[in-house]
């Protein structure tokens, strides 16, 4: 216990803890959007966008996080323009094309600017211990924006989840909300990549939602509000518990959180 307290007194560990607590509680809200709006293929594209951002940042020798967020936003805008109605209905095909395009561009940039491929691919493994204060500030701001967006627009979000056409008939600005949600997801993916890496990003976004769902059903708490709250609570518990275990046992936090989430998910499936 003393050793654990000593470890948490170290700035990188404490910063990581704060980051994981906040992102664990808030980022699953994006996971609900990803799953409910069928944006899973787009998430893969955004992960590849981070690789492209990483290549650009290293080639230009500039900070990684703002560049990866910017690249993801540009990719999202490109996709919104390609899907002419902006409804996100055709994101599957365009995501695949954009994913290939971003990897191709990343490989060209790495070749032209002589960026070591290994350094860029290191982005696939994030680390909550390597966060700067600027990263934490960006994460907190993003979490706050996401939380406020969900709270203030909860009714519109519910309508969009139910039917985009009915939402349009009600006078809800579907294109605007769709764009805002996709931009938030793009930003969250970029930040989460830095925390947990590309391979385990889903343990922050998707798995808390998947873990919460069977338990909510078991306790007869159906509905979107319950899903948002349940995912948030589950994400927070998984992140904090996984991080503490990782620090105590000297395991990699990303893997520990993902394994923990996986165990809870399978328990949930058995219960279901």
């Amino acid at each position, binding site marked *: 216990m003393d050793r654990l307290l000593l470890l948490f007194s170290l700035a990188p560990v404490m910063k990581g803890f704060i980051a994981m607590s906040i992102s664990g509680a808030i980022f699953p809200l994006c996971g609900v959007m990803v799953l409910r709006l069928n944006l899973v293929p787009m998430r893969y594209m955004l992960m590849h966008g981070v690789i492209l951002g990483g290549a650009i940042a290293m080639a230009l020798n500039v900070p990684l996080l703002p560049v990866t967020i910017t690249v993801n936003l540009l990719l999202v805008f490109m996709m919104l323009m390609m899907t002419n109605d902006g409804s996100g209905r055709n994101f599957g095909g365009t995501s695949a094309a954009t994913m290939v395009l971003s990897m191709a561009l990343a490989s060209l940039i790495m070749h032209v600017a002589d960026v070591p491929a290994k350094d860029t691919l290191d982005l696939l493994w994030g680390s909550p211990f390597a966060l700067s204060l600027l990263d934490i500030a960006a994460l907190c701001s993003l979490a706050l924006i996401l939380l406020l967006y969900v709270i203030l627009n909860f009714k519109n979000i519910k309508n969009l989840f139910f*039917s985009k*056409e009915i939402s*349009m008939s009600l*006078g809800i600005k579907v294109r605007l909300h769709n764009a805002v949600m996709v931009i938030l997801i793009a930003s969250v993916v970029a930040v989460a990549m830095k925390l947990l890496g590309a391979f385990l990003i889903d343990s922050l976004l998707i798995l808390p939602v998947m873990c919460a769902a069977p338990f909510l059903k078991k306790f007869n708490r159906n509905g979107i509000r319950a899903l948002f709250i349940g995912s948030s609570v589950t994400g927070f518990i998984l992140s904090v518990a996984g991080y503490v275990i990782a620090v105590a046992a000297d395991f990699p936090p990303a893997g520990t959180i993902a394994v923990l989430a996986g165990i809870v998910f399978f328990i949930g499936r058995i219960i279901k």
Partner: protein
Amino acid sequence: MLKIFASGRQIFYSESKWLHPIFEFESFLETYDGPRDNLTAWDSAIGKAAAVLLMRLGVCQMHGELVSELAVKYVTSQLGEGKISWDTLVDRLMCQTESQLENLTDSDEMYYLLRQRAKLVLGVPLSIKNLCYKYGKINDLSLEVPSGGRIMILGENGTGKTTLLRLICGIYRPDSGSILIDGKPVKQLEKYTIGYIPQLSELQEEQNFDLTVEEVVGLGCQTHNRQQRKAAVEAAMRRTGCENLAGRKFSVLSGGEKQKVSLARCLAQKAKLLLLDEPTANLDKDNRRMVIDILHSLSISEIPTIIMVTHDKELTSLKKWSVFNLGEQNG
């Protein structure tokens, strides 16, 4: 002047003009929880319209200073002899309402007409002028629907019936022409004015992370007060008989249940313009009847403007609906 008595005790009084005191009494009854049996009315003038309305509200004995023969005939045919008395009996009251109702016998239809005349309808007018769209037979289409009007749009497959509904609710933009709802283009319309019920096949959403029936019914509910919202949702669900489905996921419901929930959603929303796309398609006989009954009840109580696309011949049993045949009447 109208006075209403319950078991001899006066419970309501109004000096408003025309039929308005009776409509005020109708509103009063919504919150009145005293005895309702043995209601009697004293009115300064009772024509057929007043007689129809008073009887709908449960009045079983009425007296008028001036009463028309038409009113006496109607009350006698419905309640029997001696249920209406007068100081002066005239052949007919000199007003348009009396003439309008003279040959009508259906109480619902008369009630609908009277509310429309009194402008006590939820509906808003729709005006379509020279509408053109690239799909279907929507070419120079013009259509006027008054506040609280009810219209059935018929037509062969591919004529653009669904497209027309989507144009009205702003999902598609017309190539040319105009659509005005309550005098405004769709984009400038107050939020939650339109209640759109698309075809069932378009609501077969994925079953994961779905909304509950209660959430779906509350989607268009405009009040921010949680209790009022809950009350409105519950009332709408009771009205369409889906209160037992409240906690269930929408996507697992049967076709008929989904239509009940969709209608409840529009009721809770207090939609002023109701757009229904094949509301009875793929439903069995009982569920079709249920949808028809709810639509009938809606069209004579709240009276939104209703535009319904259908292939269903049984829906023509909804009396007094205008019919617009797309592909024949425009162009």
